[in-house]
């Protein structure tokens, strides 16, 4: 990285050219995901490549790059090799010699490490169904650059859109461009971003603030984490453009403390951007100044709500307050403040780069652009997926996700986390965008998409989410504090087989009341997982109540483990039982002592002969 400050778009373009020239000297690049894949040993793969390429004297020709998420987490650790774009999965240090010999020296793929389709290897990344059916716009650099090097971002066009906006457009023109693009908030509610900026711009006051909400608290969501870890410069660039548009001079990124790699990468990115004069006073030689401070969340889900988040940055208990006044009028320290989510900011550079019309050509009628989903649960290809708004659920789950693990039938997809709902199989061909999803009882949410099969109990899922919001309720307003507790009591008694049909009616009534009467988004959306499961899976609720039966085999009180005559007496269940409840002689039918059994299900999981029922 040069230490000279960039003072014009020409400077940036010259730097980009020289960086590209340097990059082209490498004959090949080995890209290794060093974020999520770190959990499965990516570090030793990277070290191995460096050591071996160094020993062979190939390190001048072949670059080893530690990147952010490459996307297909299911095959971690993931390695991508340019220029061929061969994608390798489950790579271990033992595979390195073969990759060097076969691929890096001879340009051929190592077929045993590639993704397979119908048992045939698919070597190139963009031929793999998982990627072929995506549209990577926001994630275009994620997995291609070293997020700790601003050079990598600039070489791929980073910061050009920000400098052009600052030097070629007025703030009002930027706002109008974003309004025209149709961009809506990616945090969940889908409010038009440009309109929100306009409110903050028009709000009187010299001192204005900009906040990036990176408090990704929804369980099962990791899109924002991947963006901050894999391409923090894109988020910073989006924030610079937003700050210019509304007239903010100071910004915050409020990020979960549970994301240490994201915190580290943003810190490095901010330092590098400052050194190049892309943050601070007189950005890129203009009269506009703006800087960003990182604040770590301290573990409170409610802080994802914008007024609670502001209270937390101000150093108080993270509790929401009634709106209006909206933060655009009265936010941080009582000053006009604009808050957007990470992915929203990351969408801004492409809008400024290609124009509102090109952006608005992607997506559905009222939801423009792309959406990133964290695809997880009972799906074959867990990972990070970016598709145009309006893509069907079937395409995401089957074409991209590869279908359900063990080829079981699809039961539901949970979208929108604790504020969202469960979409049943009959809506598999429904388009996923803000408005269509709302019509079928879920919300887009931030983008966690959890796939469920017949082994998932829908009543238990509702109880699970209610338990989560109940423990995260800040306690300020009664409907949320007391109401969710009452709902949880009822759900627990349904799961325990102790509820009546009257309780179910009370549950539905409470849900509607809490939705209407709660102070903030947490309480207003808390009943959604219950309402959507009662609506789409009512027969399961009735079964729990009237027949005391849990068809998925999840609700413990409704289960009784027994061993049948097909038992071969192999002893696997006896050995695995943590409370010694199973007895039996070798090669003879075993038995479970019901008084000792804690219904942990380990025997059921370990039995190979389907001799145990529950």
């Amino acid at each position, binding site marked *: 990285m040069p230490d000279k400050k960039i003072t014009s778009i020409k400077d940036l373009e010259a730097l980009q050219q020289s960086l590209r020239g340097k990059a082209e000297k490498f004959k090949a690049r080995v890209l290794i995901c060093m974020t*999520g894949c770190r*959990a*499965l040993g990516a570090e030793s793969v990277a070290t191995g490549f460096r050591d071996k390429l160094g020993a062979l004297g190939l390190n001048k020709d072949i670059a080893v790059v530690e990147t952010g998420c490459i996307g297909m*987490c*299911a095959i*971690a650790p993931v390695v991508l090799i340019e220029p061929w774009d061969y994608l390798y999965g489950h790579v271990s240090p033992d595979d390195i010699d073969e990759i060097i010999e076969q691929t890096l020296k001879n340009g051929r793929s190592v077929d045993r490490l590639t993704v397979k389709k119908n048992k045939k290897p698919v070597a190139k990344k963009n031929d793999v169904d998982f990627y072929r059916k995506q549209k990577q716009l926001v994630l275009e650099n994620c997995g291609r650059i070293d997020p700790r090097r601003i050079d990598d971002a600039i070489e791929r066009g980073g910061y050009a859109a920000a400098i052009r906006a600052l030097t070629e457009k007025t703030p009002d023109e930027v706002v109008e461009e974003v309004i025209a693009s149709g961009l809506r908030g990616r945090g969940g509610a889908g409010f038009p971003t440009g309109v929100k900026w306009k409110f903050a711009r028009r709000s009187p006051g010299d001192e204005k603030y900009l906040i990036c909400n990176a408090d*990704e*608290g*929804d*369980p*099962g*969501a*990791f899109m924002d*984490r991947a963006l901050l870890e894999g391409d923090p410069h894109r988020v910073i660039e989006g924030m610079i453009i937003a700050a210019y548009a509304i007239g903010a001079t100071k910004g915050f990124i409020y990020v979960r*403390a*549970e*994301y240490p790699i994201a915190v580290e990468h943003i810190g490095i990115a901010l330092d590098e951007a400052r050194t190049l004069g892309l943050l601070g006073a007189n950005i890129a030689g203009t009269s506009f100044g703006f800087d960003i401070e990182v*604040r*770590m*969340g*301290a*573990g*409170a*889900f409610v802080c994802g709500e914008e007024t609670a988040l502001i209270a*937390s*940055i*101000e*150093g*108080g*208990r*993270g*509790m929401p307050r009634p709106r209006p006044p909206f933060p655009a009028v009265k936010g941080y320290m009582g000053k006009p403040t604009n808050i957007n989510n990470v992915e929203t900011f990351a969408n801004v550079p492409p809008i400024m780069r290609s124009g509102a019309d090109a952006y608005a050509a992607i997506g559905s009628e009222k939801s423009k652009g792309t959406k990133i989903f*964290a695809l*997880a*649960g*009972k799906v074959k290809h*867990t*990972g990070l997926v970016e598709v145009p708004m309006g893509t069907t659920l079937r395409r995401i789950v089957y074409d991209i996700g590869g279908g359900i693990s063990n080829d079981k039938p699809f039961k539901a997809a*949970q979208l929108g*986390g604790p504020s969202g709902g469960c979409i049943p199989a009959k809506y598999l061909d429904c388009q996923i965008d803000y408005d269509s999803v709302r019509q079928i009882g879920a919300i887009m949410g931030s983008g*966690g998409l*959890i796939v*469920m099969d017949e*082994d*998932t109990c829908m009543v238990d*899922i509702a109880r*699970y989410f209610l338990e*989560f919001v109940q423990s*995260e309720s*800040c306690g300020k307003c009664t409907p949320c504090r007391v109401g969710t507790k009452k709902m949880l009591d009822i759900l627990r008694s349904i799961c325990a087989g102790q509820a009546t049909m009257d309780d179910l009616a009370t549950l539905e009534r409470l849900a509607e009341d809490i939705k209407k009467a709660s102070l903030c988004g947490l309480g207003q959306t808390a009943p959604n997982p219950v309402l959507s499961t009662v609506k789409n899976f009512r027969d399961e609720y009735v079964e729990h109540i009237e027949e005391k039966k849990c068809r998925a085999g999840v609700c413990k009180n409704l289960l009784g483990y027994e061993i049948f005559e097909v038992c071969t007496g192999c002893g696997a269940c006896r050995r*695995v039982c*943590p409370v010694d409840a199973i007895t039996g002689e070798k090669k003879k039918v075993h038995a479970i002592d019901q008084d000792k059994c*804690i219904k*942990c*299900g*380990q025997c059921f*999981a*370990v039995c190979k002969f389907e001799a145990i029922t529950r």
Partner: protein
Amino acid sequence: MNRSLSDITSVDLAPLGRIIESHAPVSSNSLIPILQQIQDAYGYLPKIVLMEMGKRTGIAASQIYGVATFYEQFCFEPRGRHTIKCCRGTACHVKGGPEISEEIERAIGVEAGGTTEDMRFTFETVACLGTCFLAPVIMVDNDYYGHLTASRIEEILERYT
């Protein structure tokens, strides 16, 4: 109250001094970052340190305590040598996370949020570790253990003494 007495004789206040200095002039805006740094330095938030912080910064002890207790991240008791974090995210939940959590409780005899008497383990559940591809997953200190079954828990925990 015995704990705070022993605190007085055993807690070194020098780290607190350095933390406060780095935030000078202290306003309540920096309260949470200060508490995070105190927890990093001391491992938890000792009462005596919080009282002293109140005196030195002019922020009322009640305000400090009120803010600290609101957030899950802060703890007021010394922690075990190893921290077990069991993910209770949605993907882990549908893939058998609750059985993992119960097995940990059974194996170490402590419920989530507690510390074993021998100070070997502190056991916590977290909303989501964001590593859904490993579900069900736990972290012990900085090590991930993914695709777990309950029967592997004891063997994993034995590695940490």
